[in-house]
């Protein structure tokens, strides 16, 4: 029985396990020191975690991985351009861009929802092509409408000698770069204490308000938190995290989004997401307006993706006007799948674990490729291949399980080879 459970677990999480092994091998091959890897990882996590978490709601609502989040990212970039053009400075500019992203991304999300409702069952490919199409419109906007029809007066934004928005937008000049991170930074061992304290308070409030006073569970949870805090204070662990300065505001936002994802599932709307995700026919019969619920799911996801992209670009301090949004959907989708999510099931934990593993690979693969084969480009291509391969594998496995739910997955090995 135990053995069977173990096999079941392995099969369900084949991608995650494969990735853990791969990361371990790459870690050995790369020759990086652990503290450097942890430092890099924290930087990437603070940039990318938010946008990966934005994928959860559409997955639960049965629309698969929302590759159209690239459009939310484009909304954020347009907001950045406008904020710079209006000369807003510092952290205010970040807030202004975030506020400006909402109406744009909501509008785009509504449009995406409308279109995806016309291609039910093909949402993923539809979303991807929608992203490409939107990229064309975005280019049209940035190259031919801005600066030609809508005047842009800030010379930093435009291409010198031609018309249109410049290839790179620098966020350092108006102080948006790192404005969120620099609000409050703590060394890792202190940051853990703060987060643990906040979580403990939330747990206690939950305990006080819950009708069933499950003291044992609370004890275990708080015990775990305390243990983590204590472990972080051990000198060896402290050494490992020595280079990390945790940007509290960014991780605070990520935590808030996790809470939001949990809380919304307990509301009426969340139940409707789940019902529509499980079966549109049944949900429809139960009197749920399926199309509307799907539009809401996509709209929320698009707005969150916009914010995620804002966090991403302000962390980097600059972005490529015409390329930054292209790969957002691909990387985020691959990350969440690596964490063990499927195209019909996803949780916060999977999203966060996936982001960690996926970006660990991103950090390690080029160096590992260079050390193993003497060519960094191989590592580069390998990680691109992993992105696509993971998505392809997840889709193949999902398709198999839905075509033959009872049949034994005979070709599983072959699919693994392909990835």
């Amino acid at each position, binding site marked *: 029985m135990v053995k069977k459970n173990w096999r079941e677990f392995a099969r369900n999480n084949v991608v995650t396990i494969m990735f853990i092994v791969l990361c371990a091998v790459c870690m050995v091959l790369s020759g990086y020191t652990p503290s450097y890897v942890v430092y890099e990882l924290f930087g990437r996590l603070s940039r990318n975690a938010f946008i990966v978490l934005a994928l959860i709601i559409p997955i639960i609502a049965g629309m*698969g991985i929302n590759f159209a989040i690239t459009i939310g990212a484009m909304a954020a970039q347009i907001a950045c351009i406008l904020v710079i053009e209006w000369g807003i400075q510092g952290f205010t500019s970040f807030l202004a861009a975030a506020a400006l992203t909402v109406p744009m991304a909501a509008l785009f999300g509504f449009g995406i929802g409308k*279109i995806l409702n*016309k*291609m*039910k*069952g*093909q949402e*993923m*490919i*539809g979303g*991807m*092509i*929608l992203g*490409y*199409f939107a*990229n*064309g*419109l975005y*280019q*049209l906007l940035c*190259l*031919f409408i801005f600066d030609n029809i809508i005047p842009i007066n800030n010379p930093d934004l435009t291409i010198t000698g*031609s*018309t249109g928005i410049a290839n790179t937008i620098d966020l350092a000049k108006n102080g948006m770069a790192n404005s969120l991170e620099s609000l409050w930074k703590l060394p890792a061992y202190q940051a853990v204490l703060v987060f643990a304290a906040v979580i403990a308070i939330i747990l206690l409030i939950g305990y006080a308000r819950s009708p069933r006073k499950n003291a044992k569970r609370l004890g275990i949870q708080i015990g775990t938190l305390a243990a983590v805090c204590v472990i972080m204070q051990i000198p060896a662990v402290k050494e490992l995290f020595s280079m990390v300065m945790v940007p509290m505001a960014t991780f605070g936002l990520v935590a808030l989004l996790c809470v939001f994802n949990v809380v919304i599932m307990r509301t009426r709307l969340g139940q409707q997401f789940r019902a529509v995700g499980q079966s*549109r*026919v049944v949900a*429809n019969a139960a009197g749920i307006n399926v199309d509307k619920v799907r539009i809401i799911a996509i709209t929320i996801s698009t707005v969150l993706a916009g914010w995620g992209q804002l966090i991403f670009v302000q962390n980097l301090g600059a972005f490529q006007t015409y*390329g930054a949004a292209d790969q957002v959907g691909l990387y985020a989708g691959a990350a969440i799948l690596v964490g063990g999510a499927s195209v019909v099931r996803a949780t916060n934990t999977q999203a966060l674990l996936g982001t960690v593993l996926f970006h660990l690979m991103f950090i390690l693969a080029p160096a590992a490729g260079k050390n193993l*084969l*003497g*060519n960094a*480009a*191989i590592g580069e*291509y*390998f990680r*691109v*291949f992993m*992105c*696509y*391969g993971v*998505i*392809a594998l997840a*889709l*193949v496995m*999902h*398709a*198999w399980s*839905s*075509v033959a739910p009872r049949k034994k997955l005979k*070709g599983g090995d*072959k699919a693994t080879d*392909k*990835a």
Partner: protein
Amino acid sequence: MHGINISRKQAIACAALIIAAVIIGAIGLYGLNARQSASGVTLLEEMRLQAILNTAGTGAVDAYVAAEKQAATKAVRAEGGGMKEVREASAKAAEEALARAQELGIGEVALSAIDTKPLASALNTLAEAQTAYFDEEARAQAAYIEAHADEVTVQQDADVADDGEEMSDLEMMEQTVDLSGFTATAEMQALQADVDAAYLALCEEIKLVFPALTDDILTSLKATITGIVAQSGDTFETRYDRAVEASGMQPGANGWIMRNGRTLALSAVGLCILALAVFFYGPLVAKLGVPRLIIGMFFVLLCLMALILDLSLTSQLSNALVRLGMNGVLVLSMLPGIQCGISLNLGMPIGIIGGLIGGLLCIELGMSGMSGFFFAIAVGLVISAVTGYLYGQLLNRLKGDEMSVTTYVGFSIVSLMCIAWLVLPFKSPVMKWPLGDGLRTTIGLQDAYKHVLNNFLSFEVLGITVPTGLLLFFALCCFLVWLFMRSRTGIAVSAAGANPRFAAATGINVNRMRIIGTMLSTMLAAVGIVVYGQSYGFMQLYQAPRQMGFLAASAILLGGASTSRARISHVVIGTFLFQGVLTLSMPVANALIPGSTISETLRILISNGIILYALTKSGGATRG
């Protein structure tokens, strides 16, 4: 014609459009006519004369002022003044001389006041000489480009390799030979002497009008004056614009009509077509669908724009023909996939890679010409038959979910092959990076099979170069597929795609038919990329094959196919329309907004828009 219901609104719009077209067309034709008429010719001639006299007049004033200045300086010097006095006197003299020149009207002359006949004839002689010179120059340069066509190099390698972005094959048509080595031919020099002589004759006439002019000043004015008279690649419009600008005359409504006669006449044609489209809106939409109608109209618009902007429509059309043959087989490879029920085969890059390996082997073994071309195809067919079979097996296990899976399987194979291109042990220096490991991103096929089909039996009709071999090969492929689809197996394949359950009930092995369709699609993709490469002259590795599936899919959809049904005619029409729009949009866009990449944007919009449209049509029906 029965069955066409025309609403009131439609009729009114149609009538309004036609009336507008007739009026505009009449004005335009009048304008075109006026160009040849006596009054029109005189108008342009007068403006030109005025322009030249203005220029010469400025020169005359300059000469007058300079003379006065010199005199003043000399006078002050003679009195023994210092530098300061000299400068002041000279400035004062210049001011006074300028005022006097204006008062006396030295730089101005009314056309009516002088005998323009000899001037005009001298001017015409100069214009003719210049036109002859420019014609000869264009001919000589064309010959030079022809002779040095092999030197064309593509800006490749470094920048492409970095970001992995695909290089636009649209730029193929824009490759230019470096003209810095071009020197004037003997004929050109002779004609240049004629121009010089004619200019001297004109100068004599001008001197009669402005006695103050010296030879030095006239020599320095030569560039300006000849520039006004004629320039390389001149049309009536450009000549007219220059004359208006330099003469400062207001030619009035008549002149404007003359200037814009061509634009007006072509706009009238456009309006007529629009009126027809409005009139037959119902049946057209029913037959073509909205997107094809929009893109068809867009194509017509582009053709008219090309004519208005005076771009060579014939050369653009021959480009479109080449691109039809170049992309045709790739698009054709979509057909068996759609027919056998795997929908759009966005995993087509799998087949493309087979063809690429074929091409690489051909270079590696040093084969060239036709034999190399067919060798590449043969190798491509073998490899893609194997991969296509495996791919078909995979697709049989995930019926109904093919498109998103195939896309990502295709993508992952392409990126896997990126690693392979780096490590495969090819030796030929044509393919390897000069430094470091791996194959180049873009490999030139000059020594292999570049243009073997394009140049086979190619001929020219009405200025359009017909790439006979290429089109014949495309037609042959179409014919073979058509034949196959009518064979017993082909019909079974179609049946399995159209209604798998019914097909299975009639004893057709649906899985086998799907594999046959997938294999055929993959193999055609391999052939397609070899044909594409021989036309393009380059082979693109790494990320380039990734988007090709989308382009081919959008072309066949544009031709009228759905995600479940396709015909050969869809392939031909779709490819021509898609490529025609792309080829034409580039020069038109560049003429309107120089240096823009709008045609690239357009390609993204059209290709993805059409796939989206097809998806909404296919997915909308299946509810629940």
